[in-house]
């Protein structure tokens, strides 16, 4: 009996803590449906009395949110495809062998993972402009994001490949498969879930990427949603309900994916980050 009571109290406290932590998110959604005067009311109302659903449609039209989101989607998909194609094989080899060269390779990859984008953008920008890559700004951003995020993907997927028993692959080789065949028919299908979760994580990061896009994409019709949000927020803006509506449209798809795949994402993250 006392145990059940303890559980209930703990659960109540936990819900309260989660509510406090997620309050900024709630505040975004509430502000996004407030009128101009309700937004600046004092004291602020924590429950919208007169929800203005029309703000969403208005912001979608006036700020061209569709185009921005499309660019984010194109950039993120391009980066993720490149990372998955290149990174999966790399992670497989790094998981399969254990020697000095693999240790050195892993060390270099971990070192690359930590380089801050805002520090790397200066040489990347100058180098890309000399190569003429900045004429294709979205391609340039995809390449830069791929280089930035691939190490993280390799570390996560390597942990997945480690959990695939090597005996299965050896049995396939004994049965007459080539290395090529064993990799594609035995190992890859077994690691599919881990690769998928890692790819989704990378996608969500690339979807919100800002530094590279802001620096390399000058033409407004190629800018992703993060840059659009940045230019929406002027220094003395007072359209916070519109900005929050924009932010809500930007972040809701990501939140939906997160809620659907929460368990897998959490376990995928924790397995890679500390091992």
């Amino acid at each position: 009996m006392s145990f059940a009571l303890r559980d209930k109290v703990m659960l109540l406290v936990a819900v309260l803590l989660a509510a406090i932590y997620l309050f900024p998110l709630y505040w975004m959604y509430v502000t996004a449906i407030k009128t101009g005067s309700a937004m600046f009311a004092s004291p602020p109302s924590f429950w919208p009395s007169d929800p203005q659903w029309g703000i969403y449609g208005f912001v979608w039209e006036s700020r061209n949110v569709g185009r921005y989101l499309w660019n984010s989607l194109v950039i993120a998909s391009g980066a993720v495809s490149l990372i998955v194609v290149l990174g999966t094989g790399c992670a497989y080899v790094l998981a399969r062998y254990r020697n000095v060269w693999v240790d050195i390779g892993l060390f270099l990859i971990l070192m690359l993972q930590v380089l801050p984008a805002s520090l790397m953008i200066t040489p990347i920008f100058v180098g890309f402009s000399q190569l003429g890559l900045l004429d294709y700004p979205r391609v340039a951003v995809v390449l830069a994001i791929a280089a930035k995020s691939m190490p993280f993907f390799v570390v996560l997927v390597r942990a997945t490949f480690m959990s695939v028993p090597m005996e299965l692959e050896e049995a396939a080789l004994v049965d007459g498969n080539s290395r090529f065949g064993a990799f594609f028919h035995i190992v890859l299908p077994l690691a599919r879930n881990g690769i998928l979760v890692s790819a989704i994580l990378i996608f969500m990061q690339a979807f919100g990427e800002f530094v590279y896009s802001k620096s390399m994409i000058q033409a407004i019709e190629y800018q992703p949603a993060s840059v659009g949000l940045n230019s929406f927020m002027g220094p003395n803006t007072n359209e916070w309900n519109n900005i929050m509506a924009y932010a809500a449209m930007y972040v809701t798809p990501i939140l939906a994916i997160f809620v659907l795949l929460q368990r897998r994402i959490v376990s995928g993250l924790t397995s890679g980050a500390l091992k």
Partner: protein
Amino acid sequence: MRKLLLSVSDGRGFDIGLVSVPLAFLFAMAGLPLIYNIVMSFQEVDMFSLGTFARPFVGFKNYITLFSLPETWPILRNTAVFVIASIAGQFTIGFALALFFWTGFPGSSWLRGLFLVSWVMPGLVVGAIWNWILSGDFGVLNYILREVGLVSGNIFWRSDPDFSLWAVVIANIWLGISFNMILLSVGLSAISRDLYEAAELDGANVVQRFFTITLPMMRSTIGAIIALGLIFTLQQFDLFAAITAGGPNNSSNVAQYWAWDMSFRQYDFAQGATISVIMIVFVMIASVVYVRSTRHEVRG
């Protein structure tokens, strides 16, 4: 030729092919820029020489100029304050939450996972939300602080030089709590429950158990998480761009934002590269600590 093809599909060539293409890509896209960055920090770069590789070398001039600027030391100090305050806040709150959820009750793992939502949100969105929450006249944080009685007047978080850096620190702590908590939870769950039962039988109380079992057992995890926090905090750029843009008058500027600002706002690419080189050295030191402590984890 046939032999080579056979090797690629069914031998060592397969592994080498799989690993060499990504490594070549990473070298071209991350290794070369790193080297180029160092080269540029010793060159004179202006808008006219941007397109050519043949730029005059000027030795340590960029570094000397950098350290003679009046804003350099305040910005480096800001960076240190930002890093230390963010990590202290994230780690303390994250550890407290991890310990709370570790006690275990129905729904605890699901609710804990909910906290990770901040990790997947775009940095610009997090910055925009906090920009609005921290707004001076109409911000909800000022309202709550006034109601609780902590402050009597509004704090102008973004425009008061005494508070602007702390505005970003608050947002960054919120952002970082989740990964600290999740990774600390992983570390906690690896400690055997038997140890606690034995200690309890021997009469150790909660505080004693925490300091004699939990902390020592978590040592390498804590080292890894603090190093990781240092790496993530030094990567934080979006929040500065979305909340204060380094202002007012550099009071909330930090090195990683300043490097970008130099290159892309003031078009001084040589100075931008110089700041980057100095900061990358710091990041590298942090990552060596991180890699060493995760190594330890795998062996132990």
